[in-house]
């Protein structure tokens, strides 16, 4: 009586409704039963599932089956589009202030959600992408060694941490921290508050007071992606008390489907802004509603992949890159572009697999952001001529030494990068002469540069293998 794998059950329904010109009511009903179960299995709140499937049903009812599309796929597309629409929408990532010297972000949430780590990641992210000068504030006086933890995080990221120990009221810590930010010229203050239950009135009051004191531009609720049905209660309570401005979903590198994202958004209207995708302090990403929709629905099919492809990559850019690669004239300028593309799309983007030589990257554990930063630094230290003409560097060790000292990286690393480009050029050249089948074989085993051949770990999902800082 227990359900089989729901995805395969869905596939069955697809098959049943394939080959019709129009979706009729009972087809959709049948379909929605499966969608409903799939969403429940993904931990979407029961009531949210109900409302959502009702809404989508109405939408689907009006739709004709498009030519060339499998009707099942089309229903999935409708469901998927609706999920994306719900979880996405126009919201500023972070509202920076313009009328005082610093912007304040307050991190709040239940115990163990990941606030401290995420506070560090966020400060790092905003320093890197918005040239902010952050100050981390240790306002968790309750959990043993919480301050110690934030200090360590700060030290690793080279971000200052303000703390006053645990024998002081968190409200006073915040007051003092703001003064410090002003005197030290920090234009961003990230407050790490203690984890607390949404039903603990004393501690919720403390947050309300801190809000009054710090007047934060952002109050970000940190939520564990593995949260079940209770997510709605938690988010509703925090939102009611504080007026949360955004949500961060953590531990998304796990194998959870993450239905909490949908529940929270639908019930509170609070946008999900970031996702935490690993234990490294650089594992933070802007929230991608499309990826989340696919994940919650549990159907990563080709359709959404193609959609994403057109969305996330400029076709022209990709094509000219491909031509360049094939011609064997690939140089450091192109490599830099390629890096930026990878960065923009995320290493797991399905589109990566479509680029020659990139299949292995796409299947590998996440490329270390740091490595990309290092490679960029090295390339930036080259002269224009060297970038376009890698031979110049190959021939001259003094050039290589200069680049190394200019970028702050070792000569070995510079040499490795030059070697990597050379390998890639040769491989591309060879591939362009092969027939497609052999070419595919050739690329799967080999990833040019970036730490040598990638060992593929079994299992699904991303972020396998725990590459930690």
């Amino acid at each position: 009586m227990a359900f089989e794998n729901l995805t395969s059950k869905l596939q069955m329904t697809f098959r049943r409704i394939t080959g019709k010109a129009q979706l009729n009511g009972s087809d959709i009903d049948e379909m929605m039963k499966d969608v409903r179960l799939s969403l429940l299995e993904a931990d979407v709140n029961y009531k949210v599932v109900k409302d959502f499937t009702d809404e989508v049903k109405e939408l689907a009812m009006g739709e004709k089956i498009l030519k060339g599309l499998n009707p099942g796929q089309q229903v999935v597309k409708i469901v998927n589009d609706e999920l994306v629409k719900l979880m996405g929408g126009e919201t500023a990532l972070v509202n920076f202030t313009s009328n005082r010297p610093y912007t304040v972000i307050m991190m709040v949430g239940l115990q163990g959600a990941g606030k401290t780590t995420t506070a560090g990641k966020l400060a790092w992210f905003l320093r890197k992408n918005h040239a902010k000068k952050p100050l981390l504030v240790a306002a968790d006086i309750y959990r043993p060694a919480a301050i110690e933890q934030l200090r360590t995080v700060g030290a690793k990221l080279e971000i200052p941490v303000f703390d006053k120990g645990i024998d002081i009221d968190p409200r006073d810590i915040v007051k003092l921290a703001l003064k410090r930010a002003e005197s030290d010229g920090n234009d961003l203050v990230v407050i790490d508050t203690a984890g607390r239950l949404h039903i603990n009135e004393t501690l919720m009051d403390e947050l309300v007071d801190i809000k009054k004191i710090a007047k934060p531009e952002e109050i970000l609720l940190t939520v564990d992606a593995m949260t079940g049905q209770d997510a709605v209660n938690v988010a509703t309570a925090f939102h009611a008390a504080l007026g949360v401005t955004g949500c961060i979903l953590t531990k998304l590198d796990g194998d959870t489907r993450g239905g909490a994202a949908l529940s929270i958004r639908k019930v509170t209207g609070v946008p999900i802004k970031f996702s935490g995708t690993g234990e490294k302090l650089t594992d933070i990403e802007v929230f991608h509603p499309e990826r989340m929709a696919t994940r919650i629905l549990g159907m990563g099919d080709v359709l959404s992949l193609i959609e994403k492809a057109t969305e996330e990559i400029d076709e022209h850019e990709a094509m000219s890159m491909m031509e360049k690669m094939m011609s064997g004239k690939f140089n450091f300028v192109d490599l830099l572009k390629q890096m930026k593309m990878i960065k923009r799309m995320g290493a797991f983007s399905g589109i990566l697999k479509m680029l020659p030589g990139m299949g292995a990257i796409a299947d590998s554990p996440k490329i270390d952001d740091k490595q990309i930063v290092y490679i960029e630094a090295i390339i930036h230290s080259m002269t224009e001529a060297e970038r376009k003409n890698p031979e110049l560097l190959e021939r001259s060790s003094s050039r290589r030494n200069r680049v190394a000292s200019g970028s702050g990286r070792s000569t070995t690393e510079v040499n490795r990068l030059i070697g990597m480009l050379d390998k890639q050029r040769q491989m591309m050249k060879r591939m362009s002469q092969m027939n497609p089948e052999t070419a595919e074989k050739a690329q799967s085993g080999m990833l040019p540069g970036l730490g040598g051949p990638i060992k593929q770990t079994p299992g699904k999902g991303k972020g396998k293998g725990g590459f930690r800082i």
Partner: protein
Amino acid sequence: MFLHRQVIDVGIFAKLFGTKERRLQEQKYKIGMAKTRGGSLSNLKAALYGAKAIDDALFDRLEEIFIMADLGVDTVVKFTAALRAEVKKRAITVPRELENIIVDKMFELYLQGQIVDANIPYVEGGLTVILVVGVNGTGKTTSIGKLAYRIKAEGKKVMLAAADTFRAGAIEQLKIWGVRVGCPVVAKNEGADPSAVVFDAIRLAKAEAYDVLLVDTAGRLQNKVNLMKELEKIDRTIRRELPSVPIVTYLVIDATTGQNGLSQAKLFNEAAKVTGIILTKLDGTAKGGIVLAIRDELGIPISFVGLGEKLTDLEQFDVEGYIYGLFADFFD
């Protein structure tokens, strides 16, 4: 503590309200679990008392209530099917009579006709190692503090091992619990090999005739192959040092966890055979129903529940109390 099928048949309500102490304990669970206004199982009573007949609509409603407690889709489906069968068998027509059946069936689901013992299976006259594992942030370190306090109160000599050498501040955190409880903590530097910490701790605990060694491990997501291998290595180290005695392994699960709890239990159990579950944060509004699905599908019992952040906020799992908590509104 133990409960036989026969006992259930005698009448669950008589049992539930048997003694004053029991009543008090139930009260404690209730404090921990019944704060969700208008949510979850608080609707159960309304559903049963409001329904005119036992029909599909009522079963849908029950299904909703169980799902909202995170019981897990498969378990709920199985459970409601069993309810339907029982209703048919006994030819029941009045919704209120479902009350008893639901509670009964819930007991059956958990007990599976076995005697479930939530006591710590100590090694007689030797060192008992208790390994505490789980995903990030579930309450492993806190639970170790609470367990240590409890075990020490039983008159045993307790030692802690800081085998979370990864998370910033983790060693420091365990040391603070060590001070609170008044027991020694074996630790190396951040970044040290966790198995090496465990090795040293076992040698020391044996040499100094400790009764119990509690091992704190780093939080890890169960799908990270390398980290699960690391855990296997810790487990192997313990077994090598203490051959032919059972190792106690507790998996800590946060009550707010949804369906992923099942995957956690499955994969952690594969890496290091799990003895029992510690269900934490039951003092919130989440019911932690996924542990029933875990018991149902993997047979792993629940050993302790966490009901707060203080040293004393740990209770031995008591199935009656728990189910009482789930259905607290029946008894208002």
